[in-house]
């Protein structure tokens, strides 16, 4: 129910929402959780394993029970924490893990079977027969145990990622965070203040106290007004810092559109990477439940949650409230509840020696031995040092002490330190370089300490950056000492005492784990699944650890802790992968001829990041093979045009350019005359072939290197390394000009005739020549090189002329009986000629293997030369490049065996790298690597591809199938 005059909600703005089909009303400023409680809805979910009815435990992102599905049209988002979801008009949510309804859940029967379903049950029971796991056990268990359901459709919603940089990142905006941000902001530092909540202020929004003689919320408003007016401050509400990474990098998840009715102009979430020179962690502390039998009924919640619902949202979820606590803090909440006019039935203090003076009954040395109320708490059984009693109550507020929120200080392997005086863990010193914890997350729980700590932490952080920050005057604030007596479970009580609400883990499960010798905390976690639910043990880790310590007879520090890993809160994959879906997965590179190719109906295929035309279908052609055959024939008999701009182009200049090329290529380029092109082979330092390609000498000190499409980036990196590491003093500079030039191959017996129609003079260029030409007024380069075996040219123009030239070349080619050809034809043409690509030079072949050992100059050193000469990298026992001819379809990737040999790994003779149907030679052709292959031309070999059921006898041949003498090439 709502309390008049309480809460920071806007009662003039009611909002309608639905939960499990029922319409309710809340107010602007509500969360789904506060609005449900205001409407008297206590039962919000069923537990993971036993399907027990559960209500809200907390008021924050650590909520283990209140997880719902938020519905948006045909989609829904599962496992949304009702305590985080802000209310908007029309919000529709439903409960999870129940059938047919939340109040009557068939699988509630699991709860009755709980004696058989303890920790480890699945491992022990469903062990045989093996085959039953996948088909029977797992699907049934998965259905029974689980939370939200998936939509099983693509998530089409928008997500974003973003980067930010600052001097000081302040995580959390409670008293410590606000004071840290203010101190740094006034000193002129670049500040980012990240707050998980929609509103800034942290616990000051919900403690109902005073700061500086005014209401806490008014002090918060004043500070925020000042911060917002400063240009060096960026305030990020709804932003949870989820992880810490090296060198001051923080991940953060911002809820951008989730608090509003779904709309298309906003992303749902934004995943931030924030780089901070320094940071102040002001993440506060999380209250612990008290562990007693039946402590999981709806209506039992944390005292801090009750306080927040009262002061922030003006809601009290009960008419007769009871408290159980092991520390003083809950007393103030009880007083506020009474002051709001709500009855407090009793305060149960687990301590023997605490004050019994309050305006309500106080029982000392109290234990709760049982609770009643199936779908909501109705009464509790209490034993105390004066006797026993039953208390009728519909809301029980627990405070088992506070856990500093140390989580992200552990992300770089820091282990938190146990402090007996506060019965909790605090961050180790320097657990994260550059991060200072302040306030409650450092174990200082009073508001006054938080304010002072925050200011001091900011000043210390900035001083490390050489910025002097004055400490602002500290306002007066609550400064009560934190008095606690650890109370981890209710001894000697019957019934299940819940530790981990989200995963249904009890004290008994932890004891069983220890009994079965899973005594390490990491083993206990995995045996019981404690701490493995969406709340990651935020509500249960310390208590479970204490219980484990107790049953194993160890102290808590000795027992250790589990590892806290990122992310701090559940983070959607959609946000982390923002922008990486579909075409955002990888950049796309388009040729200047792209549109012209698509205009002709060419299917485009990926070649690295590039898109290249596969073939150019003509009317009447039914398969790609028909088009490919025609294109091959066209190049062999007339003229074909292909865009080859994807090849890497590196412009190399300097007095030592020739010397440099001699060092990176196995063969010699210093002897190449200007105006000529030479084929070059490049090795890795380990002797394997790195790449091949042609390099032209454009002038005395000017070369243009061509790399394969696949290795363009690799070669550039390699050249940079060789230059910078081994010969930085040489006068040579180079740059990639791949994208500066559009380059087209013109190949076929009529190539020269085509060029004659467009150049001012008929090119009289010898094979492997290069010359400058003019196309209209455009300066172009003409190379006479061939990857098809025909008389071939490549013409290069500045990229902006690429499309025009391509369309022009096609028009001219067509008048000569030619046209464009695609990758399929290009591949067949080069296989017919035995030209290699990275299908052959795949990183495990030497110059020797591909028959190019003579290209490794004996007269000079080069990269890879020494290693290439090692025993084992030369010699006939290696597999060598051969050609294969076949009369039936064959495949790349197939392996080769001697006919008659048993087919297995030991008898493997080699493998096939490239395959194509040669219309020219009327057979299937392949390039392959075959043991001692060069000496076996003319033999037959058995080609086997088990994946595609292929078993064909092939003839071993020279890899150059067509025009061995190169007469056409040189025509």
């Amino acid at each position, binding site marked *: 129910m709502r309390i008049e005059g309480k809460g920071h909600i806007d009662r003039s703005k009611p909002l309608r929402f639905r939960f499990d089909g029922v319409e309710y009303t809340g107010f602007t400023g509500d969360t789904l959780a506060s609005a449900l409680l205001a409407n008297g809805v206590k039962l919000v979910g069923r537990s993971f394993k036993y399907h027990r009815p559960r209500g809200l435990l907390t008021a924050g992102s650590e909520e283990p029970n209140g997880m719902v599905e938020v519905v948006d049209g045909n989609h829904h988002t599962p496992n949304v924490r009702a305590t985080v979801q802000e209310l908007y008009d029309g919000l529709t949510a439903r409960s999870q893990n129940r059938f047919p309804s939340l109040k009557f859940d068939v699988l509630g029967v699991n709860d009755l079977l709980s004696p058989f379903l303890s920790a480890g049950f699945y491992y022990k029971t469903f062990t045989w027969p093996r085959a039953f796991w996948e088909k029977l056990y797992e699907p049934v268990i998965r259905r029974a145990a689980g939370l939200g359901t998936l939509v099983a459709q693509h998530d089409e919603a928008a997500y974003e990622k973003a980067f930010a940089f600052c001097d000081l990142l302040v995580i959390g905006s409670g008293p410590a965070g606000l004071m840290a941000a203010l101190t740094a902001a006034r000193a002129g530092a670049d500040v980012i203040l990240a707050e998980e909540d929609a509103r800034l202020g942290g616990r000051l929004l919900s403690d109902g106290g005073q700061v500086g003689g005014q209401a806490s919320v008014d002090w918060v408003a004043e500070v925020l007004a000042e911060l917002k007016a400063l240009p060096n401050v960026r305030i990020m509400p709804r932003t949870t810092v989820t992880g810490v*990474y*090296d*060198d*001051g*990098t923080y991940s953060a998840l911002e809820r951008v559109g989730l608090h509003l009715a779904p709309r298309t102009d906003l992303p749902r979430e934004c995943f931030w*990477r924030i*780089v901070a020179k320094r940071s102040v962690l002001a993440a506060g502390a999380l209250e612990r439940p008290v562990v007693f039998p039946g402590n999981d009924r709806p209506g039992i919640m944390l005292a801090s949650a009750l306080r927040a619902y009262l002061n922030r949202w003006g809601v009290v979820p009960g008419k007769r409230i009871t408290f159980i606590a092991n520390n003083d803090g809950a007393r103030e909440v009880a007083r506020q509840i009474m002051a709001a006019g709500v009855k407090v039935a009793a305060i149960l203090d687990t301590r023997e020696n605490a004050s019994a003076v309050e305006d309500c009954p106080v029982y000392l040395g109290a234990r709760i031995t049982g609770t009643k109320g199936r779908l909501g708490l109705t009464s509790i059984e209490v034993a105390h040092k004066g006797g026993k009693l039953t208390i009728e109550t519909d809301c029980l507020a627990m405070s088992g002490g506070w856990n500093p929120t140390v989580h992200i200080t552990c992300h*770089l392997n820091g282990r938190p330190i146990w402090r007996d005086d506060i019965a909790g863990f605090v961050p180790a010193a320097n657990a994260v*370089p550059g991060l200072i914890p302040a306030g409650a997350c450092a174990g200082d729980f009073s508001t006054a300490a938080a304010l002072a700590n925050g200011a001091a932490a900011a000043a210390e952080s900035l001083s490390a950056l050489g910025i002097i920050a004055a400490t602002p005057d500290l306002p007066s604030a609550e400064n009560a000492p934190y008095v606690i007596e650890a109370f981890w479970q209710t001894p000697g009580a019957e019934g299940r005492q819940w530790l981990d609400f989200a995963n249904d883990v009890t004290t008994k499960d932890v004891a069983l784990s220890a009994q079965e010798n899973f005594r390490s905390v990491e083993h206990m976690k995995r045996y019981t699944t404690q701490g493995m639910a969406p709340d990651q043990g935020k509500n249960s880790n310390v208590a479970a650890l204490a219980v484990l310590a107790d049953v194993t007879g160890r102290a808590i520090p000795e027992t250790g802790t589990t590892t806290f890993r990122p992310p701090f809160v559940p983070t959607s994959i959609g946000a982390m992968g923002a922008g990486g879906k579909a075409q955002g997965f990888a950049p796309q590179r388009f040729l200047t001829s792209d549109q012209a190719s698509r205009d002709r109906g060419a299917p485009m295929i990926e070649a690295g990041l590039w898109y290249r035309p596969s073939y150019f279908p003509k009317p009447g052609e039914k398969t790609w093979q028909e088009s490919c055959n025609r294109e091959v024939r066209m190049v062999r008999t007339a003229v074909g045009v292909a865009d080859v701009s994807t090849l890497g182009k590196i412009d190399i200049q300097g007095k030592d350019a020739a010397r440099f090329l001699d060092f990176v290529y196995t063969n010699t380029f210093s002897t190449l005359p200007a105006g000529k092109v030479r084929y070059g082979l490049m090795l890795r*330092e*380990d002797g394997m072939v790195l790449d091949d390609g042609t390099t032209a000498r454009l002038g005395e000190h000017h070369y243009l290197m061509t790399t394969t499409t696949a290795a363009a980036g690799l070669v*550039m*990196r390699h050249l*940079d*390394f060789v*230059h*910078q*590491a*081994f010969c*930085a003093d040489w006068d040579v500079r180079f740059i990639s000009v791949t994208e500066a030039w559009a380059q087209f191959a013109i190949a076929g017996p009529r190539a020269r005739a085509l060029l004659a129609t467009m150049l001012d003079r008929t090119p009289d260029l010898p094979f492997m020549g290069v010359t400058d030409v003019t196309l209209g007024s455009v300066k172009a380069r003409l190379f006479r090189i061939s990857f098809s075996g025909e008389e071939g040219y490549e013409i290069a123009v500045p990229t902006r002329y690429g499309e025009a030239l391509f369309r022009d070349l096609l028009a001219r080619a067509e008048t000569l009986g030619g046209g464009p050809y695609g990758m399929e034809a290009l591949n067949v043409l080069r296989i017919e000629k035995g030209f290699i690509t990275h299908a052959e030079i795949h990183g495990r072949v030497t110059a020797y293997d591909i028959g190019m050992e003579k290209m490794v100059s004996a007269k000079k*050193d080069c990269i890879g*030369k*020494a*290693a290439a000469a*090692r025993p084992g990298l030369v010699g006939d026992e290696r597999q060598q490049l051969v050609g294969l001819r076949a009369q039936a379809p064959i495949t790349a990737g197939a392996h080769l065996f001697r006919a008659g040999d048993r087919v297995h790994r030991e008898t493997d003779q080699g493998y096939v790298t490239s395959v194509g149907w040669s219309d020219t030679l009327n057979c299937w052709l392949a390039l392959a690597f075959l043991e001692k292959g060069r000496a076996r031309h003319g033999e037959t070999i058995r080609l086997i591809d088990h994946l595609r059921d292929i078993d064909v006898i092939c003839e071993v041949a020279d890899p150059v199938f067509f025009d061995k003498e190169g007469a056409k090439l040189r025509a």
Partner: protein
Amino acid sequence: MRITCPLCGPRDRREFYYYGTDDYLNRPVADAAPAAWDDYLHNRDNPAGVTRDLWYHDMGCTSWLAVTRNTVTHAILKVEAVAPVKGATQ
């Protein structure tokens, strides 16, 4: 992880390509014994502690960098360009 490139300043590690140990800088002479080439190409320490390795500022200035760092703490202790940089103070 961030690397301070001597030319470009502090940058996210995604801008860099990792190569391997700085052993690659000590290329043996062409006719060195096979053992020297073996060491150069294959034999590597795997220290828990300070190591020095090579990174390429692929998405930046294309400098090759020698980065001294601690594999245990992840601290980056020193970043130098492999090639002498004109005007840089090293």
